[in-house]
């Protein structure tokens, strides 16, 4: 039955080899969100041929990814006809009404073979309305044919084999719709409105090459968007300082990194994994006064010799967020590698330790000149 269906879809395809899209992307901002993801016609997915994107849907990747229990992610930007995003040197690119950011989370059976035996878990959309971004979580059905709008989210045990060949089980969080706002919220001042913002689509994270395959080939993402007329106001990519590319580090670990690169790698990692809350305008992070955005140069707010605000059990028994030279008594390291419910950071989306990420932060704190922070409690 399944084979027949796939065969039928393949036959109906227009030479692309996968299921086809019956027309341009459909985003109706005035209607309630469709129950099925396929109604948007953003992309198709097929276990054999993979993802295929519609016109004006541009896939992208980021230099250092937000860790989500080792899930792989296929990201894309959709812009309506004639519309373009506007460059921003610091914050996320500014998107026009009607834009959609698409992110599909999936697992291969074995991370050593990231293109084989894929299971799509969920696709998260951020849809740009006149009043801001609307987050919409879709969960893929058991047959992997379509994804269904699922505001309640789910916590699902997912088994896979990690890059070292060891079996892992994640308590993977498919966020509730409202949990999107845990990470995507910003408030500029106590009485300002709370605004939903994007995390990954910042120039520094996007400034990298993406291989589009046959016709286009490998292109710098910022330059490619500009050439398509989908990004305005951008300097050439050579003028944009990129965030650290985590891929080599994921493969080999931080041991061999020279000091300057260690600093850059760690700050990029904190920037993408932590700074959506831990910045001075982060709704759920500002109470901590720990600001981990890449632009923060204030040592105290970076956590150096800083006592936590209200960390509760998250301290792990330690006194200071960062003790220079001593990662093993630093709360920041403890919280980012522990798997203890109630103590883990980031707050959402992690049930497993990110081995390489934890190693990086450990090495970064260890490389800081040792300092006595004061009385431990």
């Amino acid at each position: 039955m399944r084979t027949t269906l796939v065969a039928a879809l393949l036959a109906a395809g227009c030479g692309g080899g996968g299921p086809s899209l019956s027309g341009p992307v459909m985003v109706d901002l005035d209607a309630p969100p469709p129950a099925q993801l396929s109604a948007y016609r953003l992309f198709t997915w097929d276990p054999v041929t993979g993802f295929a994107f519609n016109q004006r849907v541009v896939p992208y990747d980021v230099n250092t990814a937000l860790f989500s229990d080792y899930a792989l992610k296929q990201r894309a930007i959709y812009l309506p006809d004639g519309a373009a995003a506007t460059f921003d040197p610091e914050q996320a690119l500014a998107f026009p009404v009607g834009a959609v950011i698409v992110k599909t989370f999936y697992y291969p059976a074995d991370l050593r073979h990231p293109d084989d035996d894929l299971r799509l878990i969920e696709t998260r959309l951020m849809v740009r309305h006149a009043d801001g971004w609307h987050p919409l979580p879709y969960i893929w059905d058991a047959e992997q044919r379509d994804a269904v709008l699922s505001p309640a989210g789910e916590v699902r045990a997912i088994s896979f084999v990690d890059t070292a060949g060891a079996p892992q089980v994640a308590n993977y969080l498919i966020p509730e719709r409202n949990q999107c706002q845990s990470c995507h919220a910003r408030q500029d001042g106590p009485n300002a409105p709370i605004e939903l913002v994007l995390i990954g689509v910042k120039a520094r994270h996007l400034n990298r090459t993406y291989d589009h395959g046959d016709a286009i080939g490998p292109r710098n993402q910022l330059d490619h968007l500009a050439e398509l007329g989908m990004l305005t106001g951008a300097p050439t990519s050579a003028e944009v300082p990129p965030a650290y590319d985590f891929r080599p580090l994921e493969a080999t670990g931080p041991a061999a990194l020279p000091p300057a690169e260690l600093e850059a790698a760690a700050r990029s990692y904190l920037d993408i994994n932590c700074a959506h809350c831990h910045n001075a305008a982060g709704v759920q992070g500002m109470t901590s006064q720990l600001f981990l955005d890449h632009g923060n140069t204030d040592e105290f707010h970076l956590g150096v010799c800083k006592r936590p605000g209200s960390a509760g059990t998250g301290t792990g028994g330690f006194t200071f967020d960062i003790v220079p030279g001593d990662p093993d008594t630093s709360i920041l390291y403890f919280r980012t590698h522990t798997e203890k419910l109630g103590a883990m950071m980031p707050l959402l989306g992690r049930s497993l330790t990110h081995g390489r990420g934890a190693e990086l932060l450990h090495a970064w704190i260890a490389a800081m000149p040792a300092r006595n922070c004061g009385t431990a409690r």
Partner: protein
Amino acid sequence: MQVARFTTLVLAAGLAAGCGDGTPASFPTTDCAAVTGARCVEIRGGDSAALQTQVNSIDAPTTIVLGAGKFKLTNQLTIRTNGVHLIGQGIDTTTLDFGGATAQGNGVDVVGNDFLIQDLTVLDAPKDGIRVEASTGVTYRRIRATWSKPSATTNGAYGIYPVKSQNVLVENSRAENASDAGLYVGQCQHVIVRNNVVTGNVAGLEIENTQYADVYGNTAEDNTGGIVVFDLPGNPIVGRDVRLHDNMIRNNNHVNFGTPGTTVAGIPVGTGTFAMASRRVEITGNTYQNNNTTDISLISGLVVEMDMSKWTLPTAGLTGKFNDLGLMPGDAQGLTIMNFRGENILVSGNHHSGSGTSPDLHDPMHLGLLLGFGFGTSPVANVLYDAIMEDFDSTDPALNTNKNHMCIGGNTGGTFATLDLGNQATAMKPFFRPAAPFTPYECLILNGGAVAPVVLP
């Protein structure tokens, strides 16, 4: 009375919430027919999927009436809509149970104005019980936040936790067994906390970096510390204008099971109240009984953070009114202030009995040990002032200063001592133990006048 039933996305998802189709037993106390104004939806007791779908589908003010029974939840209940009212059938009748949570999170996690939670229990949240953040108009009424295992360090941190919010009312509620603070008001403005019971927590009731708080009619019993007021370093809301009055604060001798490194882990067992790095605080008309270390400590923030630079805050970033407080400047240009000082505090008309008989000799800051030595066989004084940065003499009142305007004069029902804590590190020095009216601390009125009662809109 107009009651709109609200079911759009719920029906779309095939999870009818059951407006009207619940068994009568599910809504013995209240239902949508009793709710005025907002849209209303009923969720049958135990239907966790319907509850999660509902709260994640609404975009307009909605009252959600929860039926009797236990809702087992694997993920936090996240509310990000203004005007959500969550109403159960009673504190012992409707329970949100997070004991089986497989995702990290709080119990109920809210950002939304005009939020109300009433008549239910939140049990065993992995992190905080009911956290409401960055919201204006917050009511907790007749609810309980608790953990099933007493004195477990693995329990969540805070039970009832409004933070960075304004116009907050917490009343007739219970907070129990939190590994940090049971009822924790943090960085809020305009707060009333009344007629609650906090028990079995490390800190019972905390008012942190908060402006304009009225705390009365509460019972704090069997915590490590009862009711405490403080500022933490580096936080841009400088606490002020807090009234603690007519509370019962007794038997707060619970073992300190706080995680080392937290502020509360430093609280000596047997503490009634402390005010740390606080100003314009009135502690009046309370009943203190059998708190083994001491009833009331007035202390500088330097006790927890000795590095003054960490108490420096740029005035440009401060929240609320502060220029009438006479805060210590942090630099010559007046661009920064420091808020570690305890100052301008009134302690008056409290009733003291049975406390100070067995100070905690093992607290990590050795405060109890110092008190044990200093007071010997007699009970520790009911009210203590660290007298950091004051002139000190153990016998002659004229050689003691009261630069920080600590007003103990009206607290004739209790004893008082100052500790010269800043100079105790090197040698054990005798304390200053004046008789009432405790000259030079005999003042009766705060600088800037009495703290006004809080009136919520």
